[in-house]
């Protein structure tokens, strides 16, 4: 395990998130704050789910064997549910904060709910990705041979790709979730929870990476397309963007430069 593995996996896992951060969030201090608060909410949800898992393990007296695996599965599912609960809680907090922001700053437009959905999703995703992958990354700097005992030699690569997918998925889920909450439509929320459960459940199939990773990417692409349409995009706007005919976008990018 070399520096190449370290840097490669680090950039695979965190590259898109870093790019999104630099280009969209780092410019506005308010967005940075909302990102960090989102990360904090995810952290609290993780804390609660670890507590649940810990208590469950303590109740079953720490026995080894298959029960450990079942407890872990139980822990993962509970964790997914708690994460989505905290996403909803963050939505409520942002709604209140938005109203506060509007009364404080009547002239300046408060950040729209869509923007906050994106920022919060990204915050959740970044924290989730960092927590799952950072320890593995730091181990990859040390000595060792991957898979020497017969495990898959693609451990690091798989974890890196999976982390990337999870980060992007959290972002899309955030957009869809908040939109569903805004329109009081409960089906998107259900869909988000179910896809999250599905993606986590697919990871139970590791180390058969083909199934879990490929399906996760397919789900990510589908969720991404759904989020794109939810956020107000359309085929026409995409075409105009790609052919550089979108006047609004061109003007906007000129101004912000």
């Amino acid at each position, binding site marked *: 395990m070399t520096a190449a593995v370290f840097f490669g996996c680090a950039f695979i896992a965190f590259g898109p998130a870093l790019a999104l951060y630099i280009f969209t969030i780092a410019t*506005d*201090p*308010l967005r*940075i*704050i909302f990102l*960090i*608060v989102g*990360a*904090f909410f995810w*952290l609290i949800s*993780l*804390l609660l*789910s*670890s*507590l649940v*898992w*810990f208590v469950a393990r303590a109740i079953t007296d720490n026995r080894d064997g298959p029960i450990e*695996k079942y407890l*872990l599965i139980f*822990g*993962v599912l509970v*964790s*997914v549910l708690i*994460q989505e609960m905290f996403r909803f809680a963050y939505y409520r907090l942002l709604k209140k904060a938005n109203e506060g*922001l509007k*009364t*404080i*700053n*009547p*002239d*300046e437009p408060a950040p729209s709910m869509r923007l906050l959905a994106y920022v919060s999703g990204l915050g959740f995703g970044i*924290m*989730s990705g*960092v*927590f*799952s992958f*950072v*320890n*593995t990354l*730091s181990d990859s700097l040390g000595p060792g041979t991957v898979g020497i005992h017969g495990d898959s030699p693609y*451990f690091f690569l*798989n*974890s890196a790709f*999976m*982390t990337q997918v*999870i980060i992007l998925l959290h972002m899309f889920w955030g957009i869809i979730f908040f939109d569903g909450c805004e329109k009081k439509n409960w089906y998107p929320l259900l869909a988000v929870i179910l896809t999250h459960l599905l*993606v*986590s459940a697919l*990871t*139970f199939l*590791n*180390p058969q990476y083909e199934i879990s990773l490929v399906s996760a990417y397919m789900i990510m692409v589908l969720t991404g397309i759904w989020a794109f349409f939810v956020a107000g995009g359309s085929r026409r706007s995409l075409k105009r963007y790609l052919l550089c005919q979108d006047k609004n976008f061109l003007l906007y990018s000129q101004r912000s430069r």
Partner: protein
Amino acid sequence: MLTFMASDSEEDACNERTSLMSAESPVPRSCQEGRQGPEDGEDAAQWRSQGREEGQEEDPDRYVCSGVPGRLPGLEEELTLKYGAKHVIMLFVPVTLCMVVVVATIKSVRFYTEKNGQLIYTPFTEDTPSVGQRLLNSVLNTLIMLSVIVVMTIFLVVLYKYRCYKFIHGWLIMSSLMLLFLFTYIYLGEVLKTYNVAMDYPTLFLVVWNFGAVGMVCIHWKGPLVLQQAYLIMISALMALVFIKYLPEWSAWVILGAISVYDLMAVLCPKGPLRMLVETAQERNEPIFPALIYSSAMVWTVGMAKPDPSSQGALQLPYDPEMEEDSCDSLGESSYPEVLEPPLPGSPGEELEEEEERGVKLGLGDFIFYSVLVGKAAATGSGDWNTTLACFVAILIGLCLTLLLLAVFKKALPALPISIAFGLIFYFSTDNLVRPFMDTLASHQLHI
């Protein structure tokens, strides 16, 4: 301690001294009583009226005054929250940098995690056979450390009250000399040892001399603001590293908790030493004590917009507040009245380009203790990065909340309690609950 950039008290009539004071504390303009609109620079329009009424709190530290004389009231409202968020980021960046330096050093240089004796402030050892004994020893260590800090703070307050400015000045110079030369030399030596780089004494002397001398000049006299901020961050990091190395484990955690409680009491209680310090500085209309304070203010110029002769829109030259530092959390303050450039009278009716930046101030002690918390989280235990990151996020959120409270209450607030409380909660819960969970998940390659 967290304060906004000073503005003048709203009761003080505008005179030259107050203009000087506001020039010195890098607030672009002073608020004059009777001045209408551009009074609010606070973070929320609704707190504006509140702020005006509580003008008797004439601590120049505590108010934010924005805006230029003559700016329309409506225009200022839109600045309020934006500046609020901007202040938060202006503090996030240095706090993050300090923590990054400390964590990077802890993770790479072995010296700061080796047990090599203890400070005389913590005489009781923690190598005891029983848990109860260890706990007792750490509590005793905390009591001793805390009483040393309290005594030194009270001593400083007494010195300040009796105007022994030279003594305070000398003390602060001695401690910054020690930090900038001795501790830097040790740090550099250990880093070179870790990376096995050969260095000869003449080069080392040159490097340390330059570093230290420029640091003394920047901190105690004048210098570019960014350089000053960088030096303050570095000495906070060095001090935090010393604490991390020499404080035994359990004592460190108990001390962190006790210091937060002390900070809360010292800043908020009417007879608290820090509060008395601030009030004394206020009474004498002296500039805010610049010692031990990191200021995020940027260079500013204030244009005179009103042809009002009593308006203070004097052109203020760029001024960097002097910073001094101490080796302790106790906020020493600068004793001597600041040397100030007299404000140049702008011609009436002339509207100059105004570029105003307000800032927030954070005490260096807060930097130090935040970094101690995160550094200890990085140093102890299994070298887990999750714990470090959780503490980092918790501290940032605590800082955010404190700044929110600062915007609401508009008086000097203790910056330690909320952040340290969050940090401690997250350290212990992440280390004991989250770590096994995430490790088990990572080993089975499950993702949540």
